[in-house]
């Protein structure tokens, strides 16, 4: 769901003026007005700040309205990164290395280094650090989404096995970056349930898990509804989860009911026609994913809506503490999603039904590890090895260093366990139960003294649980 304010003409105008007026102040190269990435400066999808624009205009042209710099027949357009086997230096997110069938993506090069907040601890700095880290992650994901778009476009235009492998590889890169982006459940990526003040639910359009639905994807494959835009397409029918199915599932069957219109049409198509229809949808879908990624970047960017500044000053949250509450609720991702939805069902613990994050590519473990990296980045700091200001610094500053250390030890324990685990789908129930127990140590610490009535930071429980006290 996009924020209503995004659709306001004055907002768009202001955003564009800001873009023109503040180029020199941009924190990340990816957020430049004249984006160096192939095709971005002249994509036909309109303003990237509007979610409703995605895929509307130009849906028939390029990949979902975005020109990924791939010419007809799968050639990379002039001025972009190197074409197939080329050696140009386009200055895009891939830094001009590779390109074509051999992408050679190097995340982070165009987004700069991970922001590291220095100085003595203050809550304002913590909010600043959390915002900068999320903006950085959004930028990284935008890069990965662009590369995904390029590779999928190349594959869709000329479906060779090699290009399929490249597309799959780019999807895995993108989903891992996304797994490190989505746990920061505040601001534009978050739903209004997570962040009632500034949540826009963009994240659900990029990856719908746990609300995935293969039939919803197959409906779009058959109906080609995406050709007239993505406004009517539910999150479970689009995004990275849909792309995973389109790129990794080789079968030509459908899970839609045989009596449904999709089911009836599906059986009338040959395998080749289905495969082509899937490629067509994938090619369009990468444009939508990329536009959503750009929307995220735009909301965070100083030349965009500059949500970083709003977060730093707790604008709209009512108080600094409430802004910190909302940011801190991101840690609940480790409890609600990682422990209870990803690991719990595999460990036979809890009531959640098995609902793999990555049923076709089977990168659940990589995703889980990325989730933990996101936890660490928010908890310790965004830089390498947790450099920068994080919630641990807050704990230390108030005199709860023991708890800060206990959480860190629990996190280290989980990381060590994750490093030893086989892919989650191949792990035994005992292995998963041990992993669950490790996660529980962390989540118990969060519930005991980090959040709720026993919190030493006076952090409240997630918004849905709010009430008076006395």
């Amino acid at each position, binding site marked *: 769901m996009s924020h209503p304010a995004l659709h306001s003409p004055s907002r768009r105008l202001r955003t564009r003026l800001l873009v023109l007026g503040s180029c020199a102040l941009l924190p990340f190269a990816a957020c430049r007005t004249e984006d160096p990435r192939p095709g971005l400066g002249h994509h036909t999808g309109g303003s990237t700040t509007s979610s409703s624009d995605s895929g509307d205009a130009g849906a028939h042209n390029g990949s979902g309205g975005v020109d990924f710099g791939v010419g007809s027949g799968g050639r990379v357009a002039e001025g972009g990164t190197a074409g197939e086997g080329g050696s140009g230096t386009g200055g895009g997110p891939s830094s001009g290395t590779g390109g074509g069938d051999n992408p050679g993506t190097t995340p982070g090069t165009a987004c700069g280094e991970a922001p590291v907040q220095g100085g003595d*601890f*203050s*809550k*304002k700095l913590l909010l600043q650090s959390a915002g900068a880290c999320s903006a950085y992650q959004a930028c990284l994901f935008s890069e990965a989404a662009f590369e995904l778009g390029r590779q999928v476009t190349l594959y869709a235009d000329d479906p060779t096995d090699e290009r399929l492998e490249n597309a799959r590889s780019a999807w895995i890169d993108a989903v891992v970056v996304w797994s490190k982006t989505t746990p920061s459940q505040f601001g534009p990526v978050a739903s209004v349930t997570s962040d009632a003040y500034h949540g826009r639910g963009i994240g659900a359009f990029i990856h719908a898990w746990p609300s995935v639905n293969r039939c919803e994807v197959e409906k779009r494959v058959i109906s080609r509804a995406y050709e007239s835009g993505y406004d009517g397409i539910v999150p479970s029918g689009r995004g990275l989860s849909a792309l995973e199915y389109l790129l990794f599932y080789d079968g030509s069957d459908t899970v839609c009911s045989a009596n449904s219109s999709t089911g009836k049409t599906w059986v009338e198509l040959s395998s080749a026609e289905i495969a082509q229809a899937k490629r067509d949808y994938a090619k369009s879908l990468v444009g939508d994913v990329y536009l959503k990624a750009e929307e995220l970047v735009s909301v965070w960017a100083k030349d965009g809506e500059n949500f970083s500044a709003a977060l730093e000053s*707790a604008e709209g949250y009512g*108080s*600094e*503490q409430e802004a910190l509450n909302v940011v801190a609720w991101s840690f609940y991702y480790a409890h609600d999603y990682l422990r*209870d939805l990803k690991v719990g069902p595999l460990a036979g*613990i*809890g*009531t959640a039904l098995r609902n793999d994050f990555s049923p076709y590519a089977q990168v659940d473990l990589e995703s889980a590890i990325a989730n933990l990296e996101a936890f660490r980045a928010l908890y310790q700091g965004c830089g390498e090895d947790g450099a920068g200001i994080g919630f641990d610094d*807050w704990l230390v*500053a*108030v*005199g*709860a260093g*023991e*708890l800060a250390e206990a959480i860190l030890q629990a996190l280290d324990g989980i990381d060590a366990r994750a490093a030893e685990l086989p892919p989650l789908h191949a792990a035994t129930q005992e292995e998963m139960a041990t992993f669950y127990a490790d996660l*529980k140590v962390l*989540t*118990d*610490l969060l*519930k*005991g*003294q980090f*959040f*709720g*009535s*026993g*919190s*030493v*930071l*006076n952090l*409240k*429980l*997630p918004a*849905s*649980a*709010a*009430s*008076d*006290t*006395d």
Partner: protein
Amino acid sequence: MTPTETIAVPVWSSISAGQAASLRALAARWERVVLEPVDISFLVTFRVALGLLLAISMERFLAYGWVDSLLLEPTFRFKYFGFDWVEPLSRPYMFALFRAMVGLGCCVAAGFCFRASAILLALGLSYIQLIDVSTYLNHYYLAALLAWILAFSPAHRALSVDAWLRRSWARASGQEGPATVSHVPRAFLWLFRLQIGLVYFCAGLAKLQSDWLVHAQPLRIWLGASTDLPLLGRMLTWPGAPLVMSWVGFLFDATIVLWLCWSRSRLYAYVVVVVFHTLTRLLFDIGMFPWIMSACALIFFPPDAARRLVGRPSAARPADSVRPPSPAVRAALVLGLVYATVQVVLPFRHLAYGGNVLWHEQGMRFSWRVMVRAKGGAVSFLVRVPDREQPIVADPKQYLTAFQENEMAGQPDLILQMAHHIGRMYEARRPGPAEVYATTQISLNGRRPTPLVDPGVDLMKVRDGLRPASWILPGPTADPPHIVPVL
């Protein structure tokens, strides 16, 4: 009286025969004092203030979505002993109830259909509280008690729609209208004063412990959330601020009733009351409590203060004020006395259990231990069933909302109820008895979490009751951490 007759009479009666007369005289004197008429304006003021504040409270429940999140969404609800049967109404009726209670609060304030409105409002408040123990708050409980007292008072006899209607109807029918009621028995004034005085005094006594007075906990933790307040925020980071505020809080709660009762200090004391409660509203999420208490503290002013404030002359005392009370009035007085006795004794029942009431919570509810603990933690349950060697991990999250889970963590009787529910769920699915054990890690006032419930006790074999609970482990003895509010 012969010696034989004396033996036939119970010993206490014979011993007190001489004292019986003086007891009767004392009772008669007490009756005279409590039935002595006092100006009704205090009661009218109280009626208007409480009615409006309760209406606002109910509206807040609706506005914040608490009807759904606290009362309707939970699939399991913690029950008060003897009130297992209380269930929420269906959603439309629940919302209708809250809307009706907003209206009832306004009716009470206006004195319209007062008796019925006030009784229905008190019933509604009581019902809402009985739905789920985890929603218990001292000020909800106080609101219900005050609503009940008000419902049985003659608060509508003056400056009310009811009084106006009665007079109008009488005039319209050509009859002599009912005499304007200007006085009510002093008993109502004293009952309200006792109730409100107890809240302050017990809240003060609850702070008479080292966590509060020596370590300034949990205030150290809570003040950290308000350091962004203009002007005040930076002051909260001064190292001595939490301790100073702890002592101020203790002294305020423990002594404010005295200052309010003393005529020479009353006005200043009330200013302090308003400032104090405004500050607590700024610093803590305590909803309507500060406003309710600020309004309630007016009860310590002379009963005719409101009348004098608006420049109305005091009415003469009714002529029949010295008549002996009727049996019904006597019964009401006895009822009031029993109520007052229960209210005085109830907050101190924790003394029968020993230990730290903030930890074991036996005697915690209904004792006005307001804002004295930061307590929370993680609870999980292990279920053993006959046909399975390995215990099953049961996460309470499966049954509870996050709010309920948080509330349960610090309250052993709720943990016990949850254990019983989980056990029953497993027993319904599998043959044979289930054993349920609780693993708890609970933090009190910032201390390192420790087990609250004995993990070796099968909670299915434990019955909740008033006896000291041996399955609750002793509380932590270490000092709480020295938390510092930071900017």
